[in-house]
């Protein structure tokens, strides 16, 4: 041994004499052969040998040679021992051997790099060479890993397949081997990905593709979904146990794609068990599962929402068709239909809230579905009209039907407001509702609370302008009562005339009614005059317009056998009272005296002489009224009833004095329903034209210049709260505005409009 002061330079060969045995000893230890451990002295000795060789002054510095030797040790070992030992094995055994060898290698690197440590302190650093650890690991990679990874990968994939088929495998082993793949990437995940993951994903894809093909044929939708859910769960577990975490999203994506996305249509549309069937049969668990599964996939819910919408639309359309088929003589049973639609809405809204987790996609699908069938006409009636009729009947019967208590009515009102949201012709609804409201207020009993309640809710949903007229109408009724009390007070001290009730309405709120120049019997004229006087005292600047077509009278007919009280309209009363003074009158005489139009007079006379009760005898006694007829009071008339209400169709004759007269101004005798509907639609159309005009002018005034398409779409948007404007109508209004010089086409670009100030 050379002394410290004057060491004799050691050559690499001389050094190897010391090093080689140590290396072999290490190998034997690592391979599990019986071999005593290194003593501390031995360890230090090895280290020192190398140290000395490194610090020898050049040209005796052996660093390079040592470095090469170090590398050589690994290479040699890898090529001649490690690799063969792995290659001679198969399947799982190969994996085990690989894993073992890998562990050995790691330890060997650790030990040898300690022996050769001094190289790392100066040599590798100064020369920018790979460190000892790197060399050791690279050697394994280059000489072992690169040669075996392909086969290893095949084995792993086969094992995974086994596990997928239900068998147990050694997960820990796989984890080790796959960690090995990762670590051989030397900091990059690329080796793992290229050498294993890509193949694995491919294999998984085809596996699940085969699976899904089989399952989709054999299983029902719920069964399939359960299997899909299971598969996803298992794959995630697999990742947790032995795959690299980065594989998870890719694997999940593949499983979802093959099990759920590619077969979505088939799955959802499965007859008897698909989305439709589940919805129909209330299978909330399965629907929730469906939501969970598809929610995880980007845009995955779209086919589900589409299937949902289709189903709801089909159900809705079926209800409409049912109602159409059931409609007899053109009248629809709207009570039944609307209730069914409300129930449908509740049912499917429940699904949206529970199973579909209140997802906006499903809210939207529900809305779209309802908008489709709620806007269909049923046997000629629009949905707006049906809904208005429904409300009308609801409120009319409210008093009578004990089962309809307040809270039921309230919830029904809520539902009506919801349904109205889906109807595009909201302005049409308002018109029909207003007409019927008028009848309710004037002729029937109405419940102030209910009426106000629905108006408040409508106002909340659609704005004040929506309900302003109707609110005015309801308020009018209250004011009318006040007026009446005031009036009665006023005439208390005057000589007793006929009992007389007046309802004063504000024009503008109420639908428009025809007036006529009816010649009233003198007793009624006095009442009118006295009310006029009272009203003039009470208010200034307000003109009263009397609408006799809506009044009713109670007359007593003094017939031979017994007096009978008759409840008739004012028109009928006027005609009957004409016979107070003379028994016989011709049509012409009546016409002159009463001053009704031909149309009205014919109707009145018909109801009094050709219908069920004949108060007047007609000459000739045909079934229709002609202008040459003569009428005579039928004193022989009698009936078992003491009180008869006469509809316009059937007029009963009334004769002689009236002792009592109750007239309610502004009360409407029902017109035949078809004419009514046509008029409402016409009125609404007219209002729409004005609304479109106003909207177009408003838009152009603020924008000054706007292309056609934008103008149209902004107009539609502005008006959408009340109705869906017809594009053709908008175009027509635009042309009209051009003719009236509000707008002009741009000369350069004729599809752009300019506002003309």
């Amino acid at each position, binding site marked *: 041994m050379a002394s410290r002061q004057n060491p004799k330079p050691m050559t690499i060969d001389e050094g190897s004499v010391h090093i080689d045995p140590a290396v072999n000893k290490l190998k034997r230890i690592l391979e599990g052969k019986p071999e005593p451990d290194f003593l501390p002295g031995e360890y230090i000795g090895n280290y020192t040998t190398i140290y000395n060789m490194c610090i020898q002054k050049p040209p005796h510095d052996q660093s390079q040679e040592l470095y090469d030797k170090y590398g050589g040790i690994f290479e040699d070992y890898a090529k001649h021992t490690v690799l063969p030992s792995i290659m001679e094995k198969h399947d799982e055994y190969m994996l085990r051997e690989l894993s073992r060898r890998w562990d050995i290698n790691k330890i060997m690197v650790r030990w040898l790099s300690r022996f050769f440590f001094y190289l790392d302190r100066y040599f590798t650093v100064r020369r920018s060479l790979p460190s000892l650890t790197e060399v050791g690991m690279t050697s394994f990679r280059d000489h072992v890993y690169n040669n075996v990874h392909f086969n290893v990968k095949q084995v792993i994939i086969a094992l995974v397949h086994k596990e997928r088929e239900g068998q147990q495998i050694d997960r820990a082993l796989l984890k080790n081997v796959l960690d090995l793949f990762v670590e051989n990437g030397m900091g990059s995940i690329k080796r793992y990905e290229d050498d294993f993951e890509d193949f694995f994903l491919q294999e998984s894809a085809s596996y699940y593709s085969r699976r899904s093909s089989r399952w989709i044929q054999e299983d029902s939708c719920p069964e399939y979904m359960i299997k899909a859910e299971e598969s996803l769960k298992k794959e995630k577990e697999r990742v947790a146990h032995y795959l690299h975490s980065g594989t998870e999203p890719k694997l999940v994506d593949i499983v979802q794609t093959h099990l759920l996305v590619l077969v979505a249509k088939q799955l959802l549309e499965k007859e008897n068990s698909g989305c439709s069937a589940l919805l129909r049969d209330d299978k909330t668990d399965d629907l929730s599962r469906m939501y969970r599964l598809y929610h995880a996939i980007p845009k995955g819910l779209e086919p589900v929402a589409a299937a949902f919408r289709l189903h709801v639309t089909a159900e809705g359309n079926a209800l409409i068709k049912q109602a159409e088929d059931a409609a007899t003589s053109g009248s629809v049973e709207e009570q039944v239909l609307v209730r069914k639609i409300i129930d449908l809405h509740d049912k499917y809204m429940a699904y949206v809230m529970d199973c579909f987790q209140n997802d906006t996609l499903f809210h939207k699908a529900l809305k779209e579905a309802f908008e489709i069938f709620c806007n269909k006409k049923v046997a000629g009636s629009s949905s707006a009209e049906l809904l208005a009729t429904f409300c009308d009947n609801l409120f009319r019967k409210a008093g009578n039907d004990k089962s309809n208590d307040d809270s039921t009515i309230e919830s029904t009102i809520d539902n009506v407001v919801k349904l109205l949201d889906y109807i595009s012709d909201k302005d049409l609804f308002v018109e029909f509702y207003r007409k019927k409201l008028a009848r309710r207020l004037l002729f029937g009993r109405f419940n102030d609370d209910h009426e106000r309640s629905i108006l408040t809710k409508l106002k909340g949903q659609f704005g004040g302008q929506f309900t302003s007229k109707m609110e005015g109408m309801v308020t009018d009724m209250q004011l009318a009562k006040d007026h009446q009390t005031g009036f009665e007070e006023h005439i208390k001290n005057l000589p007793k005339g006929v009992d007389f009730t007046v309802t004063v309405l504000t024009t503008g709120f109420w639908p428009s009614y025809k007036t006529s120049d009816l010649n009233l019997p003198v007793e009624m004229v006095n009442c009118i005059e006295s009310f006029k006087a009272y009203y003039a005292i009470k208010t200034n600047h307000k003109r009263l317009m009397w609408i006799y077509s809506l009044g009713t009278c109670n007359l007593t007919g003094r017939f031979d056998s017994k007096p009978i009280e008759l409840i008739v309209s004012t028109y009928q009363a006027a005609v009957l009272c004409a016979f107070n003074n003379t028994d016989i009158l011709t049509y012409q005489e009546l016409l002159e005296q009463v001053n009704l139009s031909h149309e009205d007079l014919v109707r009145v006379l018909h109801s009094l002489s050709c219908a069920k009760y004949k108060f007047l005898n007609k000459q000739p006694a045909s079934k229709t009224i002609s202008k040459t007829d003569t009428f005579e009071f039928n004193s022989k008339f009698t009936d078992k009833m003491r009180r008869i209400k006469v509809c316009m169709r059937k007029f009963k004759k009334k004769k002689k004095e009236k002792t009592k007269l109750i007239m309610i101004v502004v009360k409407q005798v029902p017109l035949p329903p078809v004419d009514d509907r046509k008029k409402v639609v016409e009125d609404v159309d007219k209002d729409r034209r004005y609304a479109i005009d106003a909207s177009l002018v408003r838009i152009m005034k603020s924008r000054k210049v706007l292309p056609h398409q934008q103008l149209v779409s902004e107009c539609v948007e502005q008006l959408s709260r009340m109705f869906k404007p017809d594009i*053709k109508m908008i*175009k027509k209004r635009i042309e009209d505005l051009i003719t009236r010089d509000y707008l002009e086409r741009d000369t350069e670009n*004729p599809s752009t409009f300019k506002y003309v100030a």
Partner: protein
Amino acid sequence: MPRTASKTTRKRSKPYTVTSSDTDHVPSASSKTKKSSKENDEKYKLFNKYANTSSGVIDPEGIEKLCSKLKVSHTDIKILMLAWKMKSERQGYFTKAEWRRALKALKVDTTKKLKKALPELEKEVRKPLNFADFYAYAFRYCLTDERQNCIDIETICQLLDMVLGSTFRDQVDHFVDYLKIQNDYKVSTMDQWMGFYRFCNEISFPDMTNYSLELAWPLILDNFFEWMREKQA
């Protein structure tokens, strides 16, 4: 006598004018006036040949006479083009100023020369820039009342035939067929009139593949389009 350079500012009061329609003259006291007045003389002589002596304008009768002299029918587009050149304001009547304007522009002063100038005039009018102006003019010319701004369908059919018939025969025939059977419109506005013209220029016919109901075409053309499609189906 030196010839005057420009003839464009020759507006002078004429001692022998019957009407006050040429008050747009600016008197110029150059020696050219004599020569110019002589030239104008010719035009006015010509004018007087056709004019109604009491009203001082050429009235429909006079125009008929003119037409027969020119050997064109009074429904010929060339007369309309002449009116356009004159900037005539009232259908069926030519004032003295209008007459002079046209003849000066055409550089003619006899009926024979006028006749010869008509084909040239037509060529000029048919230039795209001029034709659009002429087309719009044709509509305005037919308006009989100051407050009126639309023309009845019957007249429109005739006008279409006259103005566009030679260049867009196919379209005009179909338009006219449609206009006769439709009931939505009893009169036509300027906007619709111009719309026809743009249609003929921009839309391939009869396939109409580049037409769309979404665009800003007048509604009458939308209806025409749908009617055509129905026929073609």
